[in-house]
């Protein structure tokens, strides 16, 4: 049963441009998913013509395809390879610079942080949940100023999902498909337009200036039903909410070896994962030999450097690296952040070059029927 809610105002499809215009007038650069290189990527947008109108998608293990349909909708698909992560946690950035001074000393300079106001159109509930986890990691204890600056400039226009991919399982993790909080503006899409509500003071300022029609309660209830139905269509499940115990009592399960025969240890799953936060840092001196930049870049538990200690890579084997990824994401994450690190977006399934599906691996490793390896 769903709670009774007020019907939000309605923005007809032909007035959707207003939203972009108002955001742009308020100083935001807008980015929205657009078709590029056979996928949906966040790109700068000025006119709604650039939105993926009528685009639908097929996702399966190791497989991602877009199709053009006659649908008038702009958001009839689940996701692209990017979440919000690249916008808040940069794939590569300079943290600081150092330079040898004339007297032979060293001078350090902070790298400037990103402050350009950015409005992201079409954020999914799984990505909002992932952002929250990233906030816990980067702002929870020691605040990361680079993440914080990138996060604070964001204006989030979220949209509830009506077209989950076959790889999606946000209903199983409890992170979707309906957008409930942590947004500036929330949208429900119908063939005719959008139900629009504000979730923050900044969002309210924009929503007030939109030429909204009074929302039809019946149409709104139909829009919400579509979202609920999309949850019911998701077929992938997890073998439990907290898998910490079952994972850590199955560290010698033969399945780790079996999956390692398929796994390329290429790290693609961790790079498209919206919550993975591993990174490495290194110094990049310039040609003069007196200046250097200290870079941070995305890294992965599948890379040899992740377990490198004093001249030895501890996790040489792919089975050990795969086990590290799954036991952390679905196991020890609970201890660290109070929940699993998975938001059910399914990107790790679709973007694995050989189509490994962690939900299948977890079922094999954690299900009581298979039990422990003897």
């Amino acid at each position, binding site marked *: 049963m769903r709670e009774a809610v007020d019907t939000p105002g309605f923005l007809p499809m032909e007035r959707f441009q207003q939203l972009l215009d108002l955001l742009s007038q308020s100083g935001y650069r807008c980015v929205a998913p657009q078709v*590029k*290189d*056979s*996928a949906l*990527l966040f790109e700068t947008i000025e006119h709604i013509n650039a939105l993926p109108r009528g685009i639908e998608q097929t996702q399966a293990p*190791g*497989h*991602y*395809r877009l199709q053009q349909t006659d649908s008038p909708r702009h958001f009839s698909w689940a996701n692209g*390879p*990017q979440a919000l992560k*690249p916008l808040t946690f940069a*794939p*590569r950035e300079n943290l600081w610079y150092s330079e040898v001074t004339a007297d032979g000393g060293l001078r350090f300079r902070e790298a400037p942080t990103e402050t350009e106001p950015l409005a992201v159109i079409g954020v999914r509930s799984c990505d909002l949940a992932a952002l929250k986890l990233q906030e816990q990691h980067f702002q929870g204890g020691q605040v990361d100023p680079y993440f914080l600056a990138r996060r604070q400039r964001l204006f989030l226009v979220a949209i509830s999902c009506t077209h989950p991919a076959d790889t999606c399982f946000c209903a199983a993790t409890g992170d979707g498909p309906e957008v409930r909080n942590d947004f500036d503006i929330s949208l429900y899409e119908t063939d005719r337009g959008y139900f629009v509500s504000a979730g923050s003071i900044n969002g309210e300022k924009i929503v007030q200036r939109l030429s909204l029609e009074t929302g039809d309660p019946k149409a709104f209830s139909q829009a919400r039903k579509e979202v609920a139905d999309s949850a019911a269509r998701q077929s992938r499940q997890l073998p439990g909410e907290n898998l910490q115990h079952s994972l850590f009592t199955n560290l010698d399960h033969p399945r780790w070896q079996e999956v390692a*025969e*398929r*796994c*390329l*240890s*290429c*790290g*693609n799953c961790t*790079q*498209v994962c919206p919550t993975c936060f591993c990174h490495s840092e*290194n110094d*990049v*001196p310039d*040609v*003069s*030999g007196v200046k250097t930049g200290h870079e941070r*870049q*995305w*890294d*992965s538990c599948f*890379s*040899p*450097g992740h377990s490198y200690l004093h001249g030895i890579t501890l996790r*040489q084997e*792919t089975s050990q690296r795969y086990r590290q990824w799954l036991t952390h994401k679905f196991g020890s994450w609970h201890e660290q952040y109070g929940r699993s690190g998975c938001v059910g977006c399914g990107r790790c399934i*679709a*973007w694995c*070059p*050989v189509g490994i599906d962690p939900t299948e691996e977890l079922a094999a490793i954690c299900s009581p029927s298979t039990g422990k390896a003897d």
Partner: protein
Amino acid sequence: MKPFGEKPRIAVHKFSSCDGCQLAFLNLGGDLITLSQRVQLTHFLEAGLDAPDTPVDIAFVEGSLSTPDEVERIRKVRDNSRYLVSIGACATAGGLQALRNLDNKHDEWRDAIYAQPEFISTLEHAHPIASEVRVDYELWGCPINSRQLLACINSLLFGVPPFDNSEKLCLECKRQQKVCVMVTEDKPCLGPVTRTGCGALCPSFGRDCYGCYGPSENTNTASLSRRFAGIGLLPDAIARRFLLINSASPAFNEAGLAVRAAGEEKDGQ
């Protein structure tokens, strides 16, 4: 590492190769002037410097060992150099020339190609530099780029071992937010088994990686081969993916020959 003197001497030697890796020096442009204030280039034929026997701190060696006199020459280079760095696929893995190692038809090919084969003196197999002399560091790639070269020189000048980045290309491809061509278009990309360093050049243009930077660490070529078969490549086509620019590197050599052997066995049935 013992520090270098005031202005370390550098030589660039060429063996059997296309000269392309040496361009990583010349492509530095204005930076080459800055670099030449920190080091002294003593031998570099492509830049007009001819002093092959001058002792140096660092010798960069391009090309494979493909002729009997090259085997002699590399020993002299080794004797005259404190550090020897092989640059490019030819020097580190035998390069394209090593394709001739696969079929053992050296004499037939030579006689078919050259009008007067009696003037040609080549080894039956092309070898990487490390097969003959000790190599201190290797820069992979066909060709290598200025970024790699500069990082290597800087590290040596700072007195630290150059960082040997053997991670898979996929990580760099994703950092650059490129879309996976295997997942979206079924292209047989070698990125998941190939060493990083090129900056994900081919996938940036929608192309599948063809492995010119050689094998990464921890390669699972068997799984990738099965995936290539799944997208419709015949065994011979899969073998050719591995047996190209770095055909003599152990990981790609074994992978290619294994697929080829399995395909021939199937054909024979």
